[in-house]
């Protein structure tokens, strides 16, 4: 008894798969670094290993969790993205972390957009939030690129974070917002990408 399969999701450039033992060194390197300062780090080796084990177990406890982001051609890992709701989280969160040396390539956008569509379309979520340290400007920018908006009324985790509320499923079905996200992702995958029609923004 006691097993839950972690699904595999695919995008144009990425594969999202459950955390495996072999992915741990990349996770450890990031959580030992200053990069993890907005995620409770940096952590020592014991704490990092326990957090990685908790990321895996979260799937079993909650029925959803964080995937490891892989390059679909090389298998190289770029970070993690998915759903996260430990004990003190008021609502299910869409969360992400990108390893420091591969930031700036749109991987978090592509992975979180895919994860969010999975939760909305296949798991019946009617919304989600992201809890972000107000000093974490790249993550705030990403939340905004994903169409999330600051929700000053929503409960925070511990008062040190701000809540960004993601657009509801209907706001992402055949809307200008959804098209804009798809075009931004397509442009990262192919910088020569030319959208049909004219960009309105």
């Amino acid at each position, binding site marked *: 008894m*006691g*097993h839950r399969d972690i699904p595999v999701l695919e995008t144009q450039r990425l594969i999202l798969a459950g955390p495996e033992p072999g992915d741990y060194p990349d996770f450890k390197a990031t959580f030992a670094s200053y990069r993890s300062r907005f995620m409770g780090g940096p952590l020592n080796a014991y704490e990092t290993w326990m957090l990685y084990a908790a990321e895996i177990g979260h799937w079993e406890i909650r029925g959803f969790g964080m995937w490891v982001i892989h390059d679909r051609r090389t298998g190289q890992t770029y970070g993690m993205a998915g759903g996260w709701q430990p004990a*003190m989280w008021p609502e299910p969160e869409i969360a992400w972390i990108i390893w420091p040396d591969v930031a700036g390539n749109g991987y978090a956008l592509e992975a979180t957009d895919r994860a969010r569509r999975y939760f909305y379309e296949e798991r019946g979520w009617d919304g989600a939030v992201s809890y972000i340290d107000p000093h974490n400007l790249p993550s705030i920018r990403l939340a905004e690129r994903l169409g999330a908006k600051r929700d000053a009324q929503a409960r925070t985790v511990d008062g040190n974070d701000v809540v960004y509320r993601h657009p509801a499923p209907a706001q992402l079905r055949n809307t200008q917002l959804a098209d804009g996200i798809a075009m931004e992702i397509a442009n990262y995958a192919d910088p020569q990408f030319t959208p049909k029609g004219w960009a309105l923004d």
Partner: protein
Amino acid sequence: MSETVLRIPTLETERLRLRAPLASDFEAYADFRTGPRATFLGGPYTRAEAFDQLSALIGHWLLRGYGRWMVADRQSDRPLGVVGLYYPEDWLEPEIAWSVFDEAEGRGIAFEAACATRRHAYETLGWSTVVSLIDARNARSAALAERLGATREGVFHHPSLGAMDVWRHPAPGEAA
């Protein structure tokens, strides 16, 4: 890349079922981890930490191929404690770890579960040796280690959790 599958075996003893930890075990587990009896385990912890620790119990199985079970009453499935094989990063070597919740104290439950764990380590996993790491102030756990036939052989200093006595269990042929 294929789907990740978590598999946790179930062991049964006379009174107990050693099974995968479940979300429904959280309240009993959190009561224990936030209470005074978690002092010898680096606690007491917050409920938030207890949630991550319950999750990590499960993740340990995927990372190592073995781990700690939720020890449940075989009849009622009520969670009574956490016992099994534990080997996080920065640990001395794989150990048999046990802790029982308040209501299970003094009933030989840790002993029964630890014996089943040790048999599993030796007979199913083929281990040739195993230790238990115990806070020197934790007299009840030290007494259980003695009852299991283990002998104290030194001290392990952990970077976060401090000093723990190392108790070496009898080897496979020598264990009761």
